[in-house]
C-alpha cells in the first residue's frame, strides 16, 4: 500500500519538473516570437524597395537576364528546405518536410531530379537517417537568421543556377519550401520558386497613381540588373528564413503550452490517486486496529 503512494508521489514530482521546463520553454518562445515578427517587419522596407527597383527595371527594359529566363531543358531542380534546428515544436519540422516530399515527388513526375539543400538540423537529421544525399546544409541559426546567412545561401544558389547542368552539376530551377507565418495560430508550409525569377510586381502596385518615372540607369541597364537580381534573390530568401523562424517559435510556443497543460492535468490526476491511496491506507490501519482490539476483547 505505502509503495503505491510513493510511486504516485514520485510521478507527481517528475511531472512537475517537466512542467517547469515546458513552461519555461513556452515563455521563451513567446518572447522570441515577438522579436522574430519584428525582424520580419524590419526587413520589409528593404524587400519593398528592392522589389520596386526590380519592377522598375523590368518595366523599362525588355532585357532578358539569365536569372529571369527559363531554361529550355530542366533536368535538375534545387529544393531548399527550411526547417528548425531543434524539435519540441509540434509538427513544425515534419509538416515542412512532408511538403518537400510532395514537391520532390512532383518534380520527379515531371522528369526532374531534385537536389536538396537543407537548412536546420531537423532536415539534415531526416536526410542522413534515410541515408539520402543532399547538396548542402546550413545549421545553427534557425531561430534567428542573420542576413549574412541568407547572402551566403543566395550566393551558392545563384552560382549553382548559373553552372552548366550536365558538365558541372548545376541546377535549372530553385524551389524553396518553408513555413509561412500567417498568424500566431496558423503557419502554412509553402513552396515558392526562387529561380528563374518571377518578378512579382510589388505587393502594393504603383500606389497613389504614380507610374514609374523614366529612370536613368547608372551605369547601364545590364549592369543594374546584374547587381540587382542577386540581391533580390537574397532578399526573398531572407524573408522566407525570417518567416520560417517566426513560424518555428510560434509552433514551439503552442506545443509547449499544450505540454504544460497536459502536465497540469497529470499532476491533478496523480494527486487524486495519491490521496485516494493514502485514505485507503488509513482506513485499512483503522480496521486493523479495530479488528485487533475486538479480537483481544473476545479472547478475554
Amino acid at each position, binding site marked *: 500500500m505505502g509503495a503505491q503512494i510513493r510511486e504516485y508521489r514520485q510521478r507527481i514530482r517528475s511531472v512537475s519538473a517537466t512542467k517547469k521546463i515546458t513552461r519555461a520553454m513556452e515563455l521563451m518562445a513567446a518572447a522570441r516570437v515577438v522579436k522574430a515578427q519584428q*525582424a520580419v517587419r*524590419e*526587413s520589409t*522596407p*528593404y524587400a519593398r*524597395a*528592392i522589389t*520596386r*527597383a526590380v519592377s*522598375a*527595371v523590368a518595366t523599362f527594359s525588355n532585357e532578358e537576364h539569365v536569372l529571369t529566363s527559363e531554361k529550355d531543358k530542366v533536368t535538375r531542380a534545387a529544393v531548399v528546405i527550411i526547417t528548425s534546428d531543434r524539435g519540441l515544436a509540434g509538427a513544425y519540422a515534419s509538416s515542412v518536410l512532408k511538403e518537400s516530399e510532395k514537391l520532390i515527388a512532383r518534380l520527379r513526375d515531371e522528369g526532374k531530379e531534385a537536389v536538396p539543400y537543407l537548412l536546420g538540423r531537423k532536415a539534415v537529421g531526416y536526410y542522413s537517417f534515410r541515408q539520402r544525399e543532399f547538396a548542402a546544409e546550413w545549421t545553427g541559426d534557425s531561430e534567428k537568421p*542573420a*542576413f*549574412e546567412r*541568407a*547572402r551566403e545561401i543566395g550566393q551558392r544558389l545563384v552560382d549553382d543556377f548559373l553552372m552548366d547542368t550536365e558538365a558541372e552539376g548545376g541546377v535549372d530551377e530553385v524551389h524553396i519550401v518553408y513555413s509561412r507565418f500567417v498568424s500566431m495560430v496558423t503557419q502554412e508550409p509553402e513552396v515558392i520558386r526562387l529561380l528563374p525569377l518571377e518578378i512579382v510586381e510589388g505587393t502594393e502596385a504603383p500606389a497613389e497613381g*504614380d507610374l*514609374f*518615372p*523614366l*529612370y*536613368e*540607369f*547608372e*551605369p547601364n541597364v545590364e*549592369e*543594374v540588373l546584374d*547587381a*540587382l537580381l542577386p*540581391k533580390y534573390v*537574397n*532578399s526573398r530568401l*531572407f524573408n522566407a528564413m525570417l518567416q520560417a523562424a517566426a513560424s518555428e517559435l510560434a509552433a514551439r510556443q503552442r506545443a509547449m503550452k499544450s505540454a504544460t497543460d497536459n502536465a497540469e492535468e497529470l499532476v491533478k490526476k496523480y494527486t487524486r490517486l495519491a490521496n485516494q491511496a493514502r485514505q485507503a491506507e488509513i482506513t485499512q490501519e483503522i480496521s486493523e486496529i479495530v479488528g485487533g482490539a475486538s479480537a483481544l476483547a473476545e479472547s478475554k
Partner: protein
Amino acid sequence: MSQLQVELVAADRKVWEGEASQVSARSIDGELGIMPGHTPILGVLVQGEIKIHGEGGVRTATIDGGFLSVDHDRVTILAEAVDASGLGN
C-alpha cells in the same frame, strides 16, 4: 528649395530616414551627387561612404555596395550591410 526625402535601408532594418539637401554616394563610375530636382535614376553603388547633407551637418555611413534610386526627390539607398556609426541619431 525643396528637400530630398532620404531613406537608408539595410537588409534587416531601416537605418535612417529624414530630409537632406544633398546626398552623395559612390557609384561604379565614380562619385554621384544628388540634389533636389535630380532626374530619376537607378544606380549601382560600390563599397564606400554615403554622405547625407542635412540640417545639423553632414551624416556619413559606410555601405558594402548596394543601390540608389531617385524619383520625385525621394532618395532610397539600399545596402545589404550598413555601418551607421557615423550617422548620429
